[in-house]
């Protein structure tokens, strides 16, 4: 099975281009092959002859290296000019032997072995192909040249068989040059596929057993860009091996797809070149052979797709919670808080009216102070739900405001410029808020430090105190909830809290998570899943 440029469905122009590429290949490959063989022979011979002297071994080593390079060069040539699609050679290994054993090992290496096989097998084949190719091209060119000469009616006359070369014979020859050119192009085509198959058989390595089913299909069908799309029956879409949805190719896109069924159930689709050399029967045979493996892969792809769906839904839940908190805060601020402020004004007016009546005045005063306390409590509550300053001015000002309200002395070092995505700001803010609440409530600390900085496209937040330590992220809802919230935006939380040595809370949040949330809340579920996958893939 030899991969190549799709053999059949090409236009004449493409064929001409390919034929020119083949001529170019022959023109380059013959000298390169001769030079390679000469180099290998001469250097190898010199190395063997000189091996009693110390200089022989470096020469042999260099020869092995050169052989590998030569095989690489041949591969590049065949891929560039013949479209051979030969996978890369296995890299050279380090060899920890010396003397003859080292030489033996380096020549046993795949690349060097292949270079030797190339030299022995491919050079004669290339030369033979070059003769065939150049012969037919020369024939076509000679007929054409003769025809053109005939148009000028040469004197003394030239005879072609019994014909005297003149305008009619010239025209006939020019006419005959067309089929000769067609045959030349066809021969070049044949030469190309022959050379491809020789080079491929020498240079291409069979995929190791147990490699992904896609690689095996790509190798056996000769289409490096072959794609396998797995069918998810319950969602009625195709996904790739990572779970991202796949669009099947349109009829005239140059790609085609073949369905893989197992037991009457659709399992996957193989997306391949529309004009594969292999032909539809071979694709179907390969598909049938791979059906079992593809069935297993499909289960995995299904699982991954569900996992991605789950991630996306978790992000959406956190986002929904955040927006609910914002709404409640706004409702409290605009509703209950305004009502209470109005009530306080009323009370002040009442106090002025009952100025003479001591009892009544004391009563009003008491009500007023209770009202003030209630207002404070309400403000604190609203702030705890979702501080307005965070939505209005961002992370750094919100953290400053937060630390100012705490009785504990706090060193603040926030190096986060500008605004971050909402979800990231909220996550980072609540890490600081929860950690400081814990410090104040439990740590008995004398001071605390809050640091926040940007590291690449991540935000790092760290809260350190000098308290009693012993905090446990797995117990208590505070840290536990924080960890969940961070996980939803792909962030991580770590808590170091050895007893008696203070507590260090560290959170790391990718800023790209903002896009994640934005996409997760977009209405199109397919696009959503796709972009979630993309962003998670780019995070890795």
């Amino acid at each position, binding site marked *: 099975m030899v991969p190549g440029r*799709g053999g*059949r*469905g*090409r*236009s*004449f122009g493409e*064929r001409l281009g390919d034929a020119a590429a083949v001529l170019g290949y022959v023109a380059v490959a013959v000298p390169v092959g001769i030079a390679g063989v000469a180099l290998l022979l001469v250097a190898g011979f010199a190395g063997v002859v000189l091996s009693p002297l110390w200089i022989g071994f470096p020469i042999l080593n260099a020869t092995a290296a050169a052989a590998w390079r030569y095989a690489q060069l041949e591969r590049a040539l065949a891929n560039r000019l013949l479209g051979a699609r030969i996978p890369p050679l296995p890299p050279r290994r380090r060899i920890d032997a010396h003397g003859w054993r080292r030489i033996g090992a380096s020549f046993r290496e795949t690349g060097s072995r292949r270079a030797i096989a190339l030299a022995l097998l491919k050079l004669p084949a290339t030369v033979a192909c070059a003769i065939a190719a150049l012969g037919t091209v020369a024939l076509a060119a000679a007929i054409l040249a*003769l025809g053109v000469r005939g148009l000028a009616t040469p004197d*003394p*006359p*030239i*005879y*072609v*068989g*019994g014909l005297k*070369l003149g305008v009619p014979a010239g025209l006939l020859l020019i006419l*005959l040059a*067309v*089929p*000769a050119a*067609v*045959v030349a192009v*066809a021969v070049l085509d044949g030469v190309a596929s022959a050379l491809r198959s020789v080079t491929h058989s020498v240079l291409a390595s069979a995929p190791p057993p147990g490699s992904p089913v896609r690689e095996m299909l790509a190798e056996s069908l000769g289409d490096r860009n072959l794609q396998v799309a797995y069918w998810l029956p319950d969602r009625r879409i195709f996904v790739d091996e990572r779970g991202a949805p796949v669009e099947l190719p349109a*009829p*005239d896109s140059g*790609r*085609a*797809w*073949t*369905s*893989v*069924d*197992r*037991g*009457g159930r*659709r399992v996957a*689709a193989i997306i*391949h*070149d*529309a*004009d*594969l050399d292999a*032909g*539809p029967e071979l*694709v*179907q*045979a390969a*598909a*049938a052979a791979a*059906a*079992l493996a593809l069935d297993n892969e499909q289960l995995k792809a299904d699982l991954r797709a569900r996992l991605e769906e789950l991630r996306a839904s978790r992000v959406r839940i956190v986002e929904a919670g955040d927006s609910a908190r914002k709404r409640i805060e706004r409702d409290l601020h605009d509703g209950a808080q305004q009502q209470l402020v109005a009530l306080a004004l009323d009370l002040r007016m009442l106090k002025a009216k009952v100025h003479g009546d001591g009892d009544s005045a004391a009563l009003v005063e008491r009500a007023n102070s209770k009202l003030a306390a209630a207002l404070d409590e309400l403000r604190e509550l609203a702030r705890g739900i979702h501080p307005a300053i965070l939505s209005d001015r961002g992370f750094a000002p919100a953290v400053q405001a937060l630390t100012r309200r705490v009785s504990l002395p706090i060193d603040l070092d926030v190096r986060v410029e500008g605004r971050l995505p909402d979800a990231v700001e909220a996550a980072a803010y609540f890490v600081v808020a929860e950690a400081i609440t814990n410090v104040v409530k439990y740590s008995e600390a004398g001071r605390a430090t809050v640091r926040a900085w940007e590291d690449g496209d991540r935000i790092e937040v760290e809260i350190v105190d000098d308290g009693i330590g012993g905090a446990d992220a797995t117990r208590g809802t505070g840290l536990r909830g924080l960890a969940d919230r961070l996980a939803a935006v792909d962030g991580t939380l770590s808590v170091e809290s050895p007893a008696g040595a203070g507590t260090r809370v560290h959170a790391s949040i990718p800023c790209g998570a903002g896009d994640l949330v934005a996409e997760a809340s977009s209405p199109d579920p397919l696009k959503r899943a796709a972009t979630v996958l993309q962003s998670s893939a780019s995070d890795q």
Partner: protein
Amino acid sequence: MAAGQARPPVRGTAASRRPQLPWTSLVVASAAALLVAALALGTWWAVTKERRITSYRVSGSLARIEVDVRSGGAEITDAGGSAAEVRRTDSFAFDRPARERRSIRNGVLRISSRCPRMAVGSCSSSYRIAVPENVPVVVRSSGGDVRISAFRGSADVQTGAGNVVVDGFCGFGLSIKTGSGNARAVATCSPQSLNLRSSSGSIDATVPAGGYRVEADSNNGRADVTGIQRNAGAPYEIQALSDSGDVTVRGGG
């Protein structure tokens, strides 16, 4: 287990089959056209292939014979009488034989033969000439071999790729010049002057034993002189020079 083609069915393959057909048939038709042309030419050649032998005698005394055959070989023999006999063999096809020109002026018989310029075709014209004793011969040839046997007279031969073989020569002077052809000369009596040159062919001369003024050399080949004495005062001279061929001069043949 079955691999079926999904809806839309067999799309890729149907699409790739369609443009495939004209190309394949174009190639087949082109090859057929070329084949037909070649067959036609071959048949024409076979039908018109011809071999024609023409003989004539030239009597009267001749001072010299000059033969210029660009498209065939020449064989010179001794006539045994006083008249020269020419036998020409023409091989040709497509009804286009070589054209011969001959003239006798001042006792010099000039024969030249030229094939028409042919891009495709076959044409050759070779001569066998029996020359009367003591009439010098000049032969020019390009690819054909020149053979001189039992000839008694002087000869001057120039060829390109053709070989020159001289047997039983007994004359005054023999001069041979070849391009890539080999030259071999056997003289039965010592010639006054034996002049053999070649650019890439080998030279092999055999002369009766004796003393000669010898100049035998090759730039890139071997030069052997055996069986004769080098004698600067001798009346007989041998010059055998080749650029890249081997040179052998031996005596007592």
